[in-house]
């Protein structure tokens, strides 16, 4: 049974966003969009999270934080970069302290475009991420099974 798809818990991190995308992310929780309909919960704890949702580009201050948050999450996990800045660095790209998009630090699975990204797009991105999450879970379960079988034969 794939429960994972029905219960994605999100960790939202603002890397160095202008807050535009963050407000749109929070808008998803409001009655108008109500993502909890899909079992999506905005948790504050990487150890409970399945999806790391990041807004804004990475700067030199939070580069280790982004990496740490990612490492703290148990597998299977996916990363969604929300907004132009998270994807490429956006208009801040040329700033002295900006490294660029999130994918400069950790692997990103889904890019949600926009400046700011619209709630509908963000939800769309999460739904896309669910497919990837499920794939990863199957791969993980398969890997574990293979390991077990290998263990039995030896």
């Amino acid at each position, binding site marked *: 049974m794939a429960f994972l798809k029905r219960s994605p818990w999100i960790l939202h*991190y603002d890397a160095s966003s202008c807050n535009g995308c963050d407000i749109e992310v929070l808008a998803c929780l409001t009655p108008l969009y109500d993502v909890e309909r899909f079992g999506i919960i905005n948790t504050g*704890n990487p*150890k409970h999270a399945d999806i790391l949702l990041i807004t804004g580009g990475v700067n030199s201050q939070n580069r*280790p*934080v982004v*990496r*740490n948050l990612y*490492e*703290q999450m148990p597998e299977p996990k996916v990363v969604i970069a929300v907004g132009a800045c998270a994807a490429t660095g956006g208009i801040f790209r040329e700033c002295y302290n900006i490294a660029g998009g999130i994918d400069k630090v950790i692997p990103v699975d889904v890019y949600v475009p926009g400046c700011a990204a619209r709630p509908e797009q963000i939800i769309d991105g999460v739904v896309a991420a669910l497919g990837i999450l499920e794939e990863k879970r199957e791969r993980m379960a398969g890997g574990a099974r293979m390991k077990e079988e290998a263990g039995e034969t030896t």
Partner: protein
Amino acid sequence: MQTLLFLILFPILVACLLLFVKRTTSRYAVVVLSALAIGGASIYLLMRYAFEGAVYFAAPSETASLAMVAIEMALALFIIYMGAKFRNYLAIGLAVVQAALVVYLEMTFSENLHAINNLFIDQFSIIMALIIGIIGSLIAVYAVRYMETYHHLHPEVRDRQGTFFFVVFAFIAAMFGLVFSNNLLWIFFFWEVTTITSFLLIGYAETEEATKNAFLALVMNLLGGVAFIAAIIYLVAAGPASGGIDLAAVLASGDAAIILIPAVLIGFAGITKAALMPFSSWLLGAMVAPTPVSALLHSSTMVKAGVYILVRFAPVFAGTLAGVSVGLVGAVTFVVASAIAISQSNAKLVLAYSTIANLGLIAACAGVGTHMLVWAAILLIIFHAVAKSLLFLGTGAVENRIESRDIEDMEGLIVRMPKMAVMMFIGIAGMFLAPFGMLISKWAAIEAFVQVPFGIVFVAILAYGSAVTVFFWAKWMGKLITVIRGVEQIEKGFFEEPWIPLYIITGLVIAAAFLFPVISSMLIEPYVLVIYGVTAGLAQTNVAIMLLMMALLLFLPLSFALFRKSAKRLPAYMGGRPATADLHFEGSLGMTREAQTRNYYLTTCFGEARLFRPGAAVCIILILASWAFAGVAL
């Protein structure tokens, strides 16, 4: 009777012998052998007399009584000398008053001062003897190596180990005498001996603080002693109706109103000795003494003398307002001392406050004094003695290794001293968790209090008291089992010998939890049955469930094997900052900083400064009320 006399006299012989033994190894040999003899004799006592009920012995009284009076006078002189030396005139005054009262008693009523039976033994005495004989001698064994290390770590303290062990064994003898005596004068004599021995042991370090606290203990206990001797004078003066100085006759006396006044006075002596509020400060001050002293005197034996006498007089207290007042002193002490324990981080002070609290609970049971409550009180005495001595000895062992008795410094003991931590864990569990003993007694006490008038007051106090108890024990437990990284194991290097007493007492904590139905049906229930004509105890099914829980707890650690495999380890979450397993994280400006975790002490709510005075005031009023009620009853 020979066994009884052996248990009283043999420790004195050992004490005198130890005065002259200088080398630690030979001292260790002597102490171990005599501990075996004493422990063996107490177990023999159990097998011999467990099923016989109360047995009385007409021990030779003339010479013994004379010798006791002589020793009492000598002790009074000693107190006066010490009081003069350290300019403590209150102690001198009390010693003089007490000696004068003894002389007055001997002069005026000399023909009435004969009890037919001076010694006796019943199930309750057997239980006390087992506690003194087994726990007491184990502590003595532990103390030999402990004192060696103690002097190694404290070179400034004068090495008087000969005297130290003399006093320890003299104390053990006095405790045996106290629980075997049926003659109130004898009880009083042994009572005074325990007062003096504790004075000597608390002042062992000879620092200013130690001397001050020793005198504090002395003064408070002498105050109780004065009340004790006053009670005896009252009993003797009241004539044959009161039963005179024969304990059994007094307790069996039909004239409840007459013996209520002496009962309340002796109860007051018990309150001082058991360090209930407002006298709790002497027990706290006594924590300056070396740890085995705290374990021996102030957890498992001497303070138990106070509640022993209270429980003996419980039938007299039962159903009287005076008894309820005495019980309330205990109950208030229980809740206030437990609450203050929350605010303490010094392990020995936490233990001291918890001891005071539990003695309060026992006193509450004794004061109200119904059959079920006496049953609970005796059970509390047993379980408390076992678990608390383990905790004291454990704290001492840890202190010798990490040179701190602060609970915060015990963080991660499970990694640094795993065996020690497991033993202390069991000891703490024994103090407050189901299905261990203390909780069984608390449970029985709640059930029993509901059934008496005014019981709701006690139930309410017990409900709050249990809640705060959970808090301060659980946070200590948490400190012990916190898994910290990057430290080395420092368990080795501690002397091998002290482990054995620790192992045995740990075994006893667990065994007591398993065997409590046996202890109850073999010793406590017959005792209660004889006095009240009804017996108490827990329902069979509940006992079965408790044992089942206990077994479950013992097997649960096996499940550790389940978790060994295949879990990925990550450092703790530190708000996204990269951190290592020992809680170092990258702070701002590229500095590596350490995060520390500290327990809550909630000082603004539960601080000593806030709670002690009101608690003591209430207890003083209650003590006065108990006297007033006893007077009115007359």
